[in-house]
């Protein structure tokens, strides 16, 4: 199957001033994605912006793929203006995605900010068999709350400014949880995605507590399918491509700088 395909915009819903929910209908047969995989999406009608943008899939039906994106710069601003019926080109699913845990492991899902988008498809798949820790700067930045609650997981939400849920950073909340649940440490597995400083904190928690886990990384991308070598991160075994060997890496493999 050719992962380069055309897709039609079915809906492009503005969730709030900085986030949109985009529903695409692939016009060519499209492969089934795994949780944590992503797509490269064409953002404009000209050579500016030139490159496609990487986005994780949120939900998939037989007919459509759904994305949730944050309006950040040039590309996503143009994407916000996508109208129903527009046809764009897309590449995907790309990358490795999250490996599913073995039966006995309890997944601890730790999401910071838009990191929740990447992890949502995983949570969805794992169903209520996991603990979800989700932090954002403030209430307005919290995404997918209703959906997460519906999934019926153990959900702990926190905001830096205490405008919703617990106060504090998601790494602090995770630490507290682990202190209170010593026994879980030997049987849990971390899945995390979010801003770099947070990921570093989670990594060091994982290291100190002896917990294994997976982290989904972000890097600037030109191709998304391993051809340009542009998207590397440093790992204990050298530079690895986020788009192909990642975006998900064993948490202990990343060399943070």
């Amino acid at each position, binding site marked *: *199957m050719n992962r380069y395909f055309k897709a039609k915009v079915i809906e492009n819903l503005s969730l709030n001033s900085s986030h949109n929910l985009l529903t695409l209908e692939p016009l060519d047969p499209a492969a089934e994605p795994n949780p944590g995989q992503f797509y490269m999406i064409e953002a404009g009608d000209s050579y500016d912006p*030139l*490159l496609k943008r990487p986005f994780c899939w949120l939900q998939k039906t037989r007919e459509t793929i759904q994305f949730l994106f944050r309006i950040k710069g040039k590309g996503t601003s143009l994407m916000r203006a996508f109208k129903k019926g527009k046809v764009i080109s897309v590449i995907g699913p790309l990358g490795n995605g999250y490996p599913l845990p073995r039966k006995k492991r309890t997944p601890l899902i730790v999401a910071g900010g838009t990191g929740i988008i990447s992890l949502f498809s995983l949570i969805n798949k794992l169903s209520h068999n996991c603990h979800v820790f989700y932090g954002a700067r403030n209430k307005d930045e919290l995404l997918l709350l209703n959906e997460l609650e519906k999934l019926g997981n153990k959900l702990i939400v926190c905001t830096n400014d205490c405008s919703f849920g617990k106060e504090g950073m998601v790494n602090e909340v995770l630490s507290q949880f682990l202190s209170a649940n010593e026994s879980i440490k030997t049987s849990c597995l971390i899945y995390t995605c979010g801003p770099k400083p947070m990921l570093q904190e989670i990594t060091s928690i994982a290291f100190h507590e002896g917990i294994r886990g997976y982290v989904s990384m972000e890097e600037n991308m*030109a191709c998304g399918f391993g051809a*340009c070598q*542009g998207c*590397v991160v440093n790992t204990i075994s050298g*530079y690895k491509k986020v788009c192909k060997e990642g975006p998900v890496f064993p948490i202990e493999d990343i060399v943070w700088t």
Partner: protein
Amino acid sequence: MDLAVEIGSLKLKNPVMTASGTFGYGEEYSEFLDLNMLGAVVVKGISLKPMEGNPPPRICETPCGMLNAIGLHNIGLKRFLKEKLPYLRQFDTKIIVNILGNTIQEYVRLSKALDDAGVDAIELNVSCPNVKKGGIIFGTDKRALSRLVLKVKQSAGKRVIITKLSPNVSDITEFAIAAEESGSDALSLINTLRGMAIDIDTQKPKLANITGGLSGPAIKPIAIRMVWEASQSVRIPVIGIGGIINAQDAIEFMLAGATAIQVGTANFINPMATIEIIHGIRSYSEGKNIDNIRDIIGRIHGTAGHNNINL
């Protein structure tokens, strides 16, 4: 409709190749297109030893272009010959290996090994702007370039040698002539232009390497001009590169004097770009009643009497 062109003794079924560093080792694209359809595959620049490349971030977008500072991240000659070449050999297309070294000796050793391995042509990357002690001196120093080409030709003389020129020079024709006089069978141009971008929020360069190579549609006008100048100053075939996204761009390069073209950055945006370009060149020729694509090479009208060599 005859699309075949010749680069020295190398016969290509059509003028469309991939540009080095933008097509991996071919494999990465096999799900998107039939490699048999391509005029040639030019693989990522190979060095004697594997190279780690530069730290990230390695790429960033710019208006109608991108900067890259991959730093010639590659698996090295040995693994290329063992792991990548056999795969490419399955296809009915020409295999051109882009090479780079720090010294003439390294280029010579690479060329010899690739000659022995029977690749179809060797492209000398003398212009990568991202490596401190890399091939760059050859790209901006005429005499160094001449010596390099001469030595490579002596040691791998059977193979078609293509010299890939740097655009970061005042007068491209001097380098074109130097390469031709030293025995190069063809030229390819342009490699990337040196550029830089700064994130004004963090106040840091957008690339860890600070500067990188600019590619994409933004550079096309510069590339077209250089291909026109170079092709008029030498007799050997010129391969046009720089911002080719579609068949129109490819034809523009051929009219300017390119015998064949390479598609670079476009492969990232549309992995089927090369195939669409081949189809587009065919339609254009049919629309214009051109039987033989070679008839359009350098056939730009209205430039007679213009002395393009002087600036």
